[in-house]
């Protein structure tokens, strides 16, 4: 695939991630921090986000399956998830974390389970889209320097 098409497709995909509300302003800050001295900064940060998120999701799943439900622990885990997802600009994930937090505050176990499914779903969708976009962006960058 020629260079211009690669770059155009990467740019289109990036624009759609913002237009569809998957990503927000903080992601732009991450992109701006990437330079020749840190050429893989975004990928490294995103990979770290995946690792951190996997840990938190596992903790939340375990806490949700434990009886009686420890809502304080659940709230702490989701609070961390909200913090990391908002820091990377993962808007839909962040919004669902907020909803989960409200169910925690209300000590509504069923609501927590339902909203966690939404959190997980949004995370999975975002991760899939980001992996595709970053791969395209990498190929476009390689083609620029070729």
């Amino acid at each position, binding site marked *: 695939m020629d260079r211009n098409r690669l770059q155009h497709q990467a740019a289109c995909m990036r*624009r759609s991630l913002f237009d569809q509300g998957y990503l927000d*302003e*903080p992601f*732009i800050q991450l*992109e701006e921090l990437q330079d020749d001295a840190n050429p893989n900064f975004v990928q490294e940060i995103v990979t770290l986000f995946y690792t951190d998120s996997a840990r938190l999701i596992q903790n939340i799943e375990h806490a949700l399956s434990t009886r009686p439900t420890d809502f304080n622990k659940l709230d702490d885990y989701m*609070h961390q998830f909200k*913090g*990391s997802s908002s820091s990377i*600009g993962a808007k839909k994930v962040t919004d669902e974390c907020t909803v989960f937090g409200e169910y925690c505050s209300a000590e509504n176990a069923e609501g927590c389970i339902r909203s966690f499914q939404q959190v997980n779903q949004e995370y999975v969708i975002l991760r899939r889209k980001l992996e595709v976009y970053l791969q395209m962006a990498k190929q476009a960058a390689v083609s620029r320097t070729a």
Partner: protein
Amino acid sequence: MAPAADEAKSGNGGQIQRPFTFNEIVLRNRLTALVVDGDNFCRLLQQGILQAYGLQTQTVDNGDAAVELIASGAKFDLILIDMLLPILDGLEATRRIRAMGVNCKMLGVTAFSGERERQAFLAAGVDLFVEKPLGPEVLIPILRELDGQYPSI
């Protein structure tokens, strides 16, 4: 990879108004910072951001370690501290750091967004309560002030 600012799009399809971008500041002095955050990702991300701005940055993952570090004599121009921390929470850690006579700029950077949390963190001693994520519109004016590029208010 970084796009031009005018290519950025908001979730609603419109242009994002961006008064600040990270490359708008050049520090004249060597500033130091401490990041106190229990979440590995957030801690490393904030460290990466501060280092990109040119700050020499240390990190700890709990409030007790932050207090111990300050008590050992370490000095910082800027401290970013989360509210929810293991071992010793951010409120108490902030109170103890201030009680040691530390007057540097402290930002409470947290995922909490409620007024009650804001008031509690400010009462504990942070100069500013910032809901995560910490963006350039908040950080750049503070760095300019610390660097002496603006007169102190």
